[in-house]
């Protein structure tokens, strides 16, 4: 079953700004789809429409065969923002537990899952730390662990590594790919980094601004599983170039 199905999605904000116009997009199970485009192209808005955090003005968003709202109510997805949005008053472990508490899991089951998740994001031993004691990259890993803790089949990510330095970002890109493989999830990923989009994705959706539309969709045929070495592959550079050209054709000045 198609995980995300967008049909004619448009969004107009109060004051008449058209953020999105006529978006049609299907995301299949196990895909890793990146949305890339200039700022103001509505890529974050589109992600929020999929997550039912914003309602579209026109068109429909369907997740796992049901309305985006039902999907949100059923906790069908986990979300990660550019900021880690960890709660200062909770420890790392307690932050990861938050969605599990809301789902009504008992304490023992929560603790067991937290231990698993910390292992997955390579943060074993940091359970009792407070968020401000971690680096930006570690905080973002906690946010990913929290988003995946209740095993949603869909992961929505809004520029999750945008605030990190290049080296940390590349390392977390590789980690994210292995988590994606391990959890067998589907990912919709918003970014404004071309190499990041190419490295991570199975498909890159290139958007243009004012109004936000899908300009082109580029299949990324790099072999799986990918390692850091892919970044030095000739095919990688070709794909980076084609994404860049698609952005330029969409009206971005580079």
């Amino acid at each position, binding site marked *: 079953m198609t995980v995300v199905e967008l049909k004619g999605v448009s969004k107009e904000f109060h004051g008449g700004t058209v953020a999105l116009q006529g978006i049609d997009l299907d995301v299949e199970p196990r895909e890793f789809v990146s949305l890339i485009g200039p700022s103001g192209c509505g890529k974050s808005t589109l992600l929020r429409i999929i997550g039912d955090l914003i309602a579209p003005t026109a068109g429909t968003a369907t997740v796992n065969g049901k309305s985006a709202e039902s999907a949100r109510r059923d906790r069908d997805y986990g979300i990660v923002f550019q*900021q880690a949005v960890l709660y200062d*008053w909770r420890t790392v472990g307690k932050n990861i537990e938050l*969605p599990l508490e809301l789902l009504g899991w008992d304490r023992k089951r929560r603790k067991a899952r937290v231990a698993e998740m910390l292992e997955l994001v390579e943060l074993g031993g940091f359970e009792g730390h407070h968020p401000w004691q971690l680096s930006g990259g570690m905080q973002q890993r906690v946010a990913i662990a929290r988003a995946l803790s209740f095993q949603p089949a869909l992961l929505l990510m809004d520029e999750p590594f945008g605030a990190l330095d290049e080296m940390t970002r590349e390392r977390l890109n590789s980690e994210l790919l292995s988590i994606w493989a391990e959890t067998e999830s589907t990912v919709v990923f918003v970014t404004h980094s071309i190499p990041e989009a190419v490295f991570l994705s199975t498909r890159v959706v290139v958007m243009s601004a004012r109004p936000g539309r899908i300009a082109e969709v580029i299949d990324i045929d790099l072999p799986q599983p990918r390692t850091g070495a892919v970044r030095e592959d000739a095919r990688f550079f070709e794909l980076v170039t084609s994404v860049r050209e698609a952005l330029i054709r969409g009206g971005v000045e580079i």
Partner: protein
Amino acid sequence: MRARAERGATFLAVLGVLWGAWEGWRWIGTHFHLTWPFTVNDTTMPHLHRIVQALFQPAQVNGPSLLHILLNASAFTAKEAVLGFVLGAVGGFAIAVVLSQSRFLERGVIPYVVASQTIPLLAIAPMVIVGLESKFGGTLAAWECVSVLAAYLTFFPVTINALRGLQSADPQAVELMRSYAAGRWRILWKLQAPASLPYLFSAFRIAAPLAIVGAIISEPSASIQGGLGGAIVNFNQYYSIEPQELWATNVISALLGIVFFLVVVVAERTIVRRAPENVA
């Protein structure tokens, strides 16, 4: 440890400077017979050591020491103030929670919350005391009526700050809660309430000494003589003869206020876990 010693030294140094300023001004005033802004003499500005001495002398012939009387009075007033603080804090937070649920409600009610504080406590004390006594005369002690009046003073900073605190949650954190399909109450208890804690404790720091002021002011209206309010009224009458006794009472009242403040600070340190730079 060293920081603590430094803070203690600073405190003592400031105390010394204030003591010197008082005695210095006293000396200048009496030496040059200043009449502006006020005439300086033993009545207007008793020696500080005389005020301290007065604490250790009996207030009445063959009676207990003034300190003994004032400590008993402080204990009594503290009891009223603690209950008043708790009532004000709980009530104030509850009002903030209700108001935080709707902009409309907030805009409509906040002016009345502000207006409540423009009415002097002295003006509403008789109404509250007479009202409460006629309704619960048998079950409610006079000191409990005083607590209600103290609460009237303390709820205000709590409501204003708690409201700000409840609204301080990061919008993305609210989105995150919505992504987990959390309802209004879950968002309130899991996110907004903890986010409001630093704001709440800022309010408590103001409210704790206010609770004592409220209790002291309300005691005479409730005809209570055993508290600091009673002691102040009493020593007022003897001010021209023995000013140091009223001064000593004021010092003890101030110390009680400081103790309340410090209790709040200690509670805040143990309860509020925040990044050092995020403490409001």
